[in-house]
């Protein structure tokens, strides 16, 4: 059943390209095709999502059952006991040994925060890029520059203050 992936992805990209080929006229009166009318377009996507959920869940379940089998046969020599330890490139790290809720450094927080802000920025730039195709004159460029200059000023500030410097003690 995993071989169905390829036509599925093709179907999904088909939907995407169909939306991209919209003309300016339809963009202007803010209309488009009603997707729910032909919901079968999204059926492939739904199946894809289900598959994406199925794979990790089945992996977890398989390892759980297999692990159960391994736990039953635990009365082995010390040598094979090592096999049951979590393994990561031969080094014992916090990720493999100990609690999963290890305290993180605040550095991750700053990086995560910056990611979120620029993620949102991209979210706003995406419709802009689509719109840019139909732009006339320079107006839209100034609009974008005003948007970006402010955010990049913030980026510059953080850069100068060393917020992005991983080695620096915070």
């Amino acid at each position, binding site marked *: 059943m995993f071989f169905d992936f390829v036509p599925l992805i093709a179907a999904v990209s088909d939907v995407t390209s169909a*939306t991209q080929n*919209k003309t300016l006229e*339809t*963009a*202007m009166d*803010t*209309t*488009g*095709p*009603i*997707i*729910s*009318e032909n*919901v*079968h377009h*999204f*059926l492939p996507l*739904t199946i894809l999502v289900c598959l994406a959920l199925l794979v990790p869940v089945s992996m977890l379940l398989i390892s759980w059952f297999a692990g159960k089998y391994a736990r039953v046969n635990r009365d082995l020599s010390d040598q094979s006991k090592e096999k049951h330890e979590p393994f990561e490139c031969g080094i014992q790290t916090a990720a493999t040994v100990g*609690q999963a*809720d*290890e*305290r*993180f450094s*605040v550095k*991750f*927080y*700053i990086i*995560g*925060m*910056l*990611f*979120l*802000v620029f*993620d*949102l*920025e*991209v*979210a*706003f730039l*995406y*419709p*802009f*890029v*689509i*719109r840019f195709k*139909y732009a006339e004159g320079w*107006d839209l460029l100034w*609009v974008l520059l*005003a*948007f*970006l200059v*402010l*955010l990049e*000023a*913030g980026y510059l*500030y*953080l850069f100068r*203050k060393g*917020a992005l410097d991983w080695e620096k003690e*915070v």
Partner: protein
Amino acid sequence: MEATLTTDILFYLFSAAILGCGLMAVTVKNLLHSAIALMGCLFGTAGLFLLLDHEFVALMQILVYIGGVVIFIIYAVLLTTHLGTRYLPASTLKYISGVTLAAIVLGLVLHIDPQATHTAVNPDRTATTIDAIGYRLLDGSTNGFLIPFEVISVLLLSAMIGAATIAKHQKPGATNDEDETGGSAS
């Protein structure tokens, strides 16, 4: 919306997912688990947006909320000392008052809803494409949202600078870290 059997089934599926995950998010004792449940809740919302033909909003729901905000919440949980495993029991009084309040709001909404369903849904509602969103977002006329678009950059900027400033100047040994300013910006 053109209600077909498929859309109906999908609607109830997504709604059940939202309700179930939402309940889990507020009742589960481990904060990390409730963050994961929140993720499921947001996935369901994205599905509903998709059913309403708002593909861009659905996309952003997944990209920004699940990819950004929830991950960020998990960071915030992991930053704190064992907040993820410490149980924070609520008193019975709080449970009762919370449930009562929720029931009142539900009652209010249910009481009002049947009288207004015919006016609630715009009959002319059509699919909103990314083209249309881009057009209206950057339109300088009365129909557009040019000014909020520009103001949002200041909003993002202040959230970014503010959160970084607070996070950067932690007291040594401070245990309380609650400033998720960036999270509320969205």
